[in-house]
C-alpha cells in the first residue's frame, strides 16, 4: 500500500521509498523531514475537495506532502492481521480519490 492510500488515522510503517522516482532535491527533502525505511507514519488530513496535498505524521512530526510524492512511499500496517478488514472498508473511496 502507498502512503496516500492509507486509511485515515491508522498507524503504519514505511517499508520502502522509491528514490529513483524522485529528483535528488525532493529525495533529500524527504530524508530531511525524517522519511526513512522503518519510520512510523499515519495519514491525518486531506486537503479540501481534491484530497491533495495530504498531511501525515512521520514519527513525531506532521508533514504536508502532495499525492505525487506520497505515492512513491510504500507502507504496511504494523500488525498484519486486521489489515484486510480495514483496507476493505477504507480503500474503495480512497483509491478512487487517489486516481482523480
Amino acid at each position, binding site marked *: 500500500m502507498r502512503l496516500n492510500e492509507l486509511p485515515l488515522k491508522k498507524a503504519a510503517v514505511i517499508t520502502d521509498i522509491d528514490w529513483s522516482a524522485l529528483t535528488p532535491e525532493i529525495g533529500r*527533502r524527504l530524508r*530531511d523531514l525524517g522519511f526513512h525505511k522503518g519510520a512510523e507514519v499515519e495519514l491525518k*488530513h486531506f486537503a479540501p475537495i481534491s484530497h491533495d496535498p495530504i*498531511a501525515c505524521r512521520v514519527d513525531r*512530526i506532521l*508533514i*504536508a506532502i*502532495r499525492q505525487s510524492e506520497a505515492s512513491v512511499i510504500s507502507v504496511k500496517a504494523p500488525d498484519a492481521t486486521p489489515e484486510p478488514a480495514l483496507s476493505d472498508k477504507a480503500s474503495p473511496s480512497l483509491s478512487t480519490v487517489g486516481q482523480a
Partner: protein
Amino acid sequence: MNGHCEDSSPPTINSENPLIAMVGNPNTGKSALFNALTGAHQKVGNYPGVTVERKYGHMALPDGRPVEVVDLPGTYSLDPGSADERVTRDVLFGQMPNEKVPDILLVVLDATNLPLHLRFALQLLSLKIPTVFALNMVDMAQRDGLEINIELLSEKLGAKVIPTVAVRRRGIEELKQEVAHLVDQMAVHAPKKAENAAILEASGTPILQDISSYQPKASELTKEVTKVVHKAKGWSQKIDDIVLHPFLGPIILAGLMFFMFQAVFAWSQTPISWIEDGFTALEAFIRPLLPEGLFRSLIVDGVIAGVGSVLVFLPQILILFLFILLLEGSGYMVRAAFLMDRMMARVGLTGRAFIPLLSSFACAIPGIMATRSIEDPKSRLTTILIAPLMTCSARLPLYTVIIGAFVPDKEIGLKIGLQGLVMFLLYVAGIVAAMLVALVFRYTLAKGKSGLFLIEMPRYQTPILRDIVLGLWQRAMIFLKRAGTIILTVSVALWAVLAFPRAPEGVPQSEYSIAGRVAAALDPIMKPAGFNHAMTMAVIPAMAAREVAVSALATVYSIDSSDEDKTQESLIGTLRKAWPLSQALAFLAWFVFAPQCLSTIAVIRRETNGWKWPIFTLCYLFTLAYIAATIVFHVAQMFGL
C-alpha cells in the same frame, strides 16, 4: 548602483569577540532563544548576493564578557539544499566570504522530536567545533508525557545539554554559563580548532556523511534517554481536526482573511489621520519659515509631501505584518498554505505563494519580501512578478475618486451598491489577471514543474509578544529607511520634473514643466487608449506612487487644494463634466495593471538581485495596462458610453 537601496551591507560586529553560531532544525524555537539571549541587541540584514536574512546579536556572558551571536538559518542537515540552508553550511565550513567561522556552536534541539533533531546534532558534532546543546521546549515534552534523561544525553553526546524553554526564558542563564565555560576552554584548545578547519579546507567539503546515515544512531539514542510516562494529550491534533477539516477549514480561512482585511483598513484610519495631521502641521510650521521660492517649493512640495504620501501607509503595513507574524508565530500559516495548495497548483504555483499574494493586497512590498519562504526559485520568481497585480491599498484613493465621479450611487438589489460592486470587480480583475499571467509565465519564462510542496507543520503555540513586537519594529525600520532614501530621492526628482523649467507669468506651471512637455509628447501614443491630456499628465508624477495621480489630477484641473474633502468633492464634479464614461473606465483599467510604484520596482530589484526582472515587470505591466485601457475604451465607446 549597489548599496543604494539595500540594507544588505553586513552589520558591523566586533570580530575580536568569540562568535557563537546558533544552529538547528526549523521550528525549534531557535529565533525565540536568539531573542531571549540577545534581547534588543540585534542587527538584521542580508547575506551578500542572496536574500537570506543575516541575524547577528550581541550577548553578555554572566561575568560581563561580550560575545557575538549569529542565528543561522534553520536547516535539517548540512546536505546543501535551499539558499537558506546553503548559508548555514557555508558559514560553518568557513566558505562564506567575509564571515568568521564560529568558535562555538549552540545547537538547538526540540525535546518533543528527538529522533529527527539528534540526527542533525550528530552530524554537527562531526564538525568538531566546541558545542553546547539547548534542549528546547522541555515543557512541551513533559506535556507529551516524555521524560528525558538529560545527564545521560549529555554523556552520550559528549557535550553539555541544557534544558530550556525559550519562550519563558527558562534555562537562559545556565546556557550563558556553559557558553562562558566553553569560551574559557577555547584559550586552551585553540590550536585544535585550527587543525580541524585545515582538514575541512584541504579535503574540500564532503567529509560529512549523508544525514540519513545518522538516523539509526539518533533513533537508538532517543530510546535510551527517553521514558514515555503517559500518552500525549494531542491538543495540537484537536485544533487541526477543526482547522484542517475539509469543509470547516476553508470557511475558517476565509473568515480569518476577511477579518484581516477589515482590520487593515478599519484600524489604520486613526493612525493614518495622525500621520496626515502631523505632516500638515509640519508643512504649516515650515512654510512661513522659508522665503517664497524654489527652495520652499522643494522642501514643502517635494520632500514633505512626497515622503508624507508614502509614510501614511506605515499603519496599514504594520497591521498587516502584525497579522502575518501572529499567523506565523501560532503555526497557522502553514495550514493556510496546505488548504490553498491545490488552487495555487492550478496556475503552477504552490500553497506557499498564497501568503505573499495575500499580503500584496495591502502592499506589494511586504508581499514580495514574503516570497523568501518559497524554495523553488521559479515559483518564487513567478510569485514576485504577479504580486504587483494584486489590488494594493495605494490604488484605493484613485479608485474611490473615479468611481465616485462616474458610477451612480445606487443599489442594484440585495443591498448591494453599484459603486461597491465596481470596486469589487476591479479587485477581481487584478486576481484573474494575476492567475492568467502566472499560468503564462509557468509555461514560458519560468518553465518547470509546479514546484514542491513538502513542509513540516509545526505544532500550534501561543505567539510570544516580545518576538512580535521585535518583528514589527524591524519591519517598520526597513520601511522607514526606504522612505528616507529611495522615496525621498524620487520625490525630489519628480518635484524637479514638475517644477522646471519655470513657467512665465500666465502659463500654467504644470504644462510648461518637463512633465507637461513629456505628457504633450505622449498624448498621441496614449490617445488610442482613451487618455486625454489631463490623464496623461496625471500618470507621470504617479510613476513614484499611484495615489499621487489623484492630487496630480487636482493640480491639472487647478483646484484649490487647501481642504482635502472639498478637493475630492470638487474634483469629482470636475471630472464628471470633463471626461466621458469611456475615458474614465479606460483610466481605471490602466491602473489595474500599471506598475506605478517605484518602491515595488526597487524591492523586485533587491529580491531578484539585478535589473532584469524589475525592468521586465515594468514592460509587461505597462503593455498590459495599455492593452486593457485600449480595449475598455473602445468597447465602452461601442456601447455609446
